[in-house]
């Protein structure tokens, strides 16, 4: 079955769920690499470096005298190593920027005392008497992941779809999933640099993420729900949508090879509570060698209201639904597969199952709060 739903704890568990669903469907794993979170990430990736990024550069000839870096999650330091530097003094920075001395005038290979090993810091400052190169702060906990980059191929020679998914943690508590298609895969490139990619994000957190996924051998649809009434900024349910993969072409396959679309709730790696609605009315579609933003017939409460869609279900009939057709001023490409805009009747809620033309669909939405013009029907078949 192409449809599953459930709840994952954190973004890495969600990626594992997608991987298992895909391999069960016959998708092939082209690559699956995990970068552990056991050291300050090289080049300050997923960190915020105030100064001194040369000290942690992947180019080991770069150097800096001082380093101050905010990391994605708190860590307990075990030991430190570096080249050059002279003698180095290290501070752990507290929430109010107070510097706690954790190592004074030390050399490479220094192991922290038990007192320090029991502490947790998210921000670190290191000052060397000389320039430091290849600075590493080894964490006690070596089991956490910084990122996991998974690449899947649908194994279809005629219509090859390559899905790229990267789960990662980032500063400010971010735990996001980058998604895109690509028309090739190179192990030396990052997800943004893969051939013909356009990266969208599903914004997560370290807590519970409810997921509703439909995967077939052409495309992935994923809705997520995060509900954090304890959050100071967003107490509504936050619903996000990712559609990545082929659209259902309306003919003209010869003219539209690799016709992938991407719809996502964000195209920047933001926090889950900073999300807007997905770009369902303006999907990115791949044609003529690049992704371009096009129009769609999807409904969105920003532009569709009772003023221009004064319609309801007829007596004893089905609710109104429409395919999400992707087009621009010169072309009609096709429609998204397995996802329809609907105008639900009063009383119809998210997560209800409805039938449209003898097929089962799940009622889901994009955005926060509940607006009937932001609801969709996602195939459960």
């Amino acid at each position, binding site marked *: 079955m192409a449809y599953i739903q459930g709840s994952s704890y954190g973004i890495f568990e969600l990626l594992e769920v997608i991987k298992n669903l895909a391999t069960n469907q016959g998708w092939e794993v082209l690559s699956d690499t995990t970068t552990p979170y056991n050291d300050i990430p090289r080049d300050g990736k997923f960190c915020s470096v105030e100064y001194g990024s040369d000290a942690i550069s992947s180019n080991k000839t770069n150097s800096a005298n001082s380093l101050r870096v905010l990391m994605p999650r708190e860590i307990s330091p075990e030991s430190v190593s570096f080249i050059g530097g002279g003698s180095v003094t290290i501070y752990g920075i507290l929430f109010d920027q107070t510097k706690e001395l954790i190592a004074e005038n030390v050399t490479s290979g220094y192991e922290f005392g038990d007192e320090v090993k029991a502490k947790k810091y998210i921000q670190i400052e290191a000052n060397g008497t000389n320039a430091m190169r290849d600075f590493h702060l080894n964490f006690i906990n070596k089991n956490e992941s910084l990122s996991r980059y998974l690449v899947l191929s649908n194994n279809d020679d005629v219509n090859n779809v390559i899905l790229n998914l990267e789960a990662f943690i980032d500063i400010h508590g971010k735990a996001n999933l980058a998604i895109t298609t690509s028309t090739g895969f190179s192990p030396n490139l990052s997800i943004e640099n893969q051939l013909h990619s356009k990266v969208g994000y599903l914004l997560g957190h370290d807590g519970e993420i409810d997921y509703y996924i439909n995967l077939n051998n052409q495309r992935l649809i994923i809705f997520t729900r995060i509900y954090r009434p304890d959050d100071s900024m967003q107490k509504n349910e936050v619903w996000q949508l990712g559609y990545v993969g082929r659209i259902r072409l*309306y*003919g*003209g396959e010869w*003219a*539209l090879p690799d016709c992938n679309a991407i719809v996502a709730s964000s195209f920047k790696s933001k926090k889950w509570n900073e999300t807007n609605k997905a770009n369902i009315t303006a999907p990115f579609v791949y*044609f*003529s060698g690049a992704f371009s933003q096009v*129009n769609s*017939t999807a*409904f969105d409460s920003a*532009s*569709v209201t009772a*003023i*221009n*869609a*004064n*319609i*309801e*279900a*007829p*007596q*004893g*009939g*089905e609710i*109104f639904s*429409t395919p999400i*057709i992707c*087009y621009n*001023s*010169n*072309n*009609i*490409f096709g429609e998204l597969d397995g996802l329809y805009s609907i105008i639900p009747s009063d009383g119809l809620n998210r997560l209800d199952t409805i039938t449209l033309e003898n097929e089962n669909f799940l009622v889901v939405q994009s955005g926060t709060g509940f607006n009937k013009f932001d609801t969709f029907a996602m195939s459960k078949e």
Partner: protein
Amino acid sequence: MIRYEKASLQTRIELLTKIESFLNVCGWQTHRKSNEILYATDSLGGGLVFNFIPYKGDYNRVRSSINVCNSINNDLNYNQQPGFMEMSMFDFQKNAQAELNQVYLIGDDKNFTILIDNSTSPIRYNLFFTCGWLRKTHDFNGGRTAFTNMCFNGFTNWSGITTIYKRQHAFSYNTGDSNSGKLAFFLGDIWRHVFNVDLRSSKFLTNLMPINTNSSETTYNQLSALSAVPLLQICKSTLSGLYTLITPNFFYKNNRNIFVHAGDFDMVRVLGIKSEIKPGQILHLGDEKFILFNTYTFSTSESFPYYIVAVKIA
């Protein structure tokens, strides 16, 4: 089963006889009221009335017509039929021996389309008329539609006949300054039309009506978000080379003042063309066949795209 016939005929009486036998073969009940008047009833009881009189010329209110009605009463006069609504209004050619040229007839037991091809005659026009039943999404009283490209324009002090502009497409509404033909819909026992009406009070809309969200205008379209006109205007996709064909979909207003989806009229498609096509051209779509007809007036002044219709023949 859809029947399709093309014929070259000289007089309007011949044409009426031809229509009569065609409809009979399709499964309609017919009654030849007179030499010039034919009544026909489809398999669901819908009525059709033909009145073919000789050429009249300008300033005449009564001319040849094709009309719809709720049902047929053989004893009544043609324009006294229950629920009578005049649809097509036109003149045959002046020459009594060459009143028309070619005609196309398409139909089955509940749908009928006629195109009178006068593209090479002295008075140049194509008369297009279609009527039939929707594939309904649910049970309701009504669901028959009729459309024509030539009808009475409201002015008896001029020629009286309006024909569709090239830039206008079928199954939309007609306003005073934009000739789009006459579209009618049978709902709740009454034939209703959208020719020069305030669309805000119309009890039906289609997906081929243009977008207008200004509620203070008479062409305010309460279903603008569902309008297929932006897709229709694409005409032919430049990458795939495929034409865009739109099936007319109808919506009616229920007694809560909200529209519901009535169904679609599967016999016809509306499309735009970016270069001249030959009317009568056959289009294959999968295992279905359509014939292309011009619905517009013959004038050279407007620029592409033009809008035409495709009628299903198989």
